[in-house]
């Protein structure tokens, strides 16, 4: 076990962790940030995605020690002034979840995508979400949420 400091959702957090333990388990079990989910533990499904320095990263395999100097942001940390971010609000408005187990990962991936590219085309969107599985079939709603965000972004830019 080693004591380390992680920057999580804008705050330094002291944790006692096995350095080789995947980041996901530390976030969920030590910091109580259970938004990111364990879906496979194999980096195959996307449910555990978090932002590392703004980029989406799967947290179920890579060791916590890799992220000591990183800015880690989870789905909880995307909220703005205690309310949903615009991406989260678009998911809510479009009903972009059924059971919701995959939702946090998709919110994180969408946030990262739209930060890089305000007007992604469908191919770019698909590439960003390709590693995210959903079993209930909420895909159409996620795509619609992204469409509304693109339209809003276009309005803001005018």
């Amino acid at each position, binding site marked *: 076990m080693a004591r380390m400091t992680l920057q999580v959702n804008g705050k330094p957090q002291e944790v006692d962790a096995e350095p080789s333990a995947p980041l996901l388990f530390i976030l969920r079990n030590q910091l109580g940030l259970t938004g990111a989910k364990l879906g*496979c533990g194999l980096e195959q499904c996307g449910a555990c995605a978090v932002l590392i320095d703004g980029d989406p990263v799967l947290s179920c395999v890579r060791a916590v020690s890799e992220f000591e100097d990183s800015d880690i942001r989870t789905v909880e940390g995307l909220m703005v002034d205690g309310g949903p971010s615009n991406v989260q609000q678009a998911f809510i408005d479009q009903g972009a979840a059924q059971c919701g*187990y995959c939702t946090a990962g998709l919110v994180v991936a969408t946030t990262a995508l739209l930060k890089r590219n305000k007007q992604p085309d469908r191919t770019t969107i698909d590439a960003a979400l390709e590693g995210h599985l959903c079993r209930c079939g*909420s895909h159409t709603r996620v795509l619609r949420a992204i469409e509304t965000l693109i339209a809003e972004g276009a309005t803001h830019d005018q």
Partner: protein
Amino acid sequence: MTSSLAKQPDVDQWLSIGTDGRITINSGKVDIGQRISTAIALIAAEELDVPLESIDITPVETGVSPDEGVTSGSNSIQDSGQAVRLAAATARRHLIAKAAKTLEVNPATLELSDGLIRSRETNRSVTYGDLQGGQSFGIPIDAEAAVKAAENYTQIGQPATARGMTALATGKATFVHDMTMPGMLHARVVRPPHYHARLKLLDTTACQRLEAAGFHIIHDGSFLAIAGEDEYAVIKAAERLSAAVNWDMKTGLPTQDIYESLTKNERASLPVSDGIPRSEPVPELAAPPANADVTLNARYEKPYHMHGSLGPSAALSVSEGKKLRIWTHSQGVYVLRESLADGLGMDQDDLHIIHAPGAGCYGHNGADDVAADAALVARALPGTPILLKWSREDEHAWEPYGTCMAMELQASLDKDGNVVAWSHESFGDTFMMRPRAGAPGEGPKRLLPLRYTAESVAAPVPQPAMRYHVGIHRNLDPLYNFPNPRLVKNLVRGLPLRTSALRTLGGFANVFAIECFLDELAEAAGVDPVEFRLRHLEDARARAVIEAAANALRKGRSPPNQGRGLAFSQYTNSKAYAAVGVELEVLDDANIKLHRAVVAVDAGQVVDPDGLAMQCEGGFIQAASWTLHEAVTFDRDGVTSRDWDSYPILRFGNIPEIETILIERPGDPFLGAGEAVAGPAGAAIANAVRDATGLRLRRMPFTPDVIRATALG
């Protein structure tokens, strides 16, 4: 009257009003992402004239919630929705009568809005909270109570935000997987390599080392689990424990071709008429009638499909004295309680089962099994809460699958292209293996870990399900007007994999077969497939969804290399009607690209239109995934589909634009719609592939290998 109401006939069992005027609804149906809680809240809010926000819905738990069996079969809106509607209508009438007395006015002068009852004459008013807050109603539900007329609806049928959406989008929702309790230990199971393997030898030195490191090992016959404080450490320790076991592999899994086994193995065969199997001899397949001009045969097949929940199943359990509590994502807390109490030799009253959200799947996944796993570990470690999660591999390899099936169809056309003879035999394993109320000893057999403990119970021997449109014969009986259809269900023995309920049961495979075969017949008759369906269909609502989907599909441009297909069914010939149109392309690499889908649905009175549309979109996507990608694979040593690489599912890159057309039927009874779209979706894809390429695919999944092999003949 629904069975939900017959079992729970009192208003108080469904509805209560707090002193603050908030309405609490007790439903026995669980929200598994299908938005049933939103629909039920809308129904209650409408009948009681209160805002949707003032409705609370309690979690489903034994001893508190109405016993509504299992959340399955697209029954929730028809059973629970209707029960809540009548409970609320009865309560409303009671509240008005009470208010009339309190306000000393004629009840006819009273108006309800926003939880307030006001007299038009005196302008005096009283709130629900003041009238009824904290008190029981003490009256039975009147099944004939006047419900609000559809033209007066202000909430039902309007857009609503699904309950819990904000929590899901912000990561604040609590799944079973996220629960924690003081002193809680994490646990994992160590399963054998396959169903029939049994523990031969456990390396005691390795176990002692793990125990010295602070882990608890639970070893009971061939049931093996490990618990400890840190979740990741437990996962690693479970791997060490797994390496310390020597398994007796017994005979392994049967490796005969499943499609051969489906029609060669021993089986129970029953004729089906009007949707019900009959305990009678199966009639021989007769020679084509004298007026037969053309006779076609075809055999359609589907492999085993898994539920494939994105989150592996999990349960939290704590044993205190003789009491045992379990938090579970089971779709049936009462039947789980009955089966588990029987299996553990407990009094049902000592077992308290509470629903908590899990990952969706639409069917019987590992939820009930993992609850039994957690119970076994919790009982071995009394007083310690145990959160037991399956691994991805546990879920993939051990969940009960949707059975493989074969459908053999034969039909004759007269010279005018009318169907004059129809035969359809379906073959498959059971879909009916949920824990359930039944004869003593039967329930425990349906809980996986109880087959592996020292006192192990035998695997259950399935019997043919005999009710209307269940199991293998769901949607076997076509809605079309065919003279004297010969319909046979075959429950096949000795198939290799464990099976149970998966969304639509046999409906997906049967509708796939019927609706593909109709296109084949239409082609033989030289008739447009839509026209061919309509000429054999009298039901006006069925015709309406087909016409709506066909019209929508015809709109828009179809590039020359794309194909279009359409299919229809009414789920269980009694629930929602759905027609699905698909436009797709077979690419040069033989992958199928889905471009567009149109779904026309008639679900009677629509309660939550956005929720219904979402169920239709999700149903299409799940069925498209089954059709294009999915097949559980295995060999002698066990299931080989053990992760998402070896069991691929549909991804974002192939999600088509889906247009949902809801045909409004204001004031008509609710029709369950959660499973309506899957069957026609599979067939519409197959029909569109035929249209695009000339290839008729009769065995799922439609992978590039299958398409190339079919093209080469």
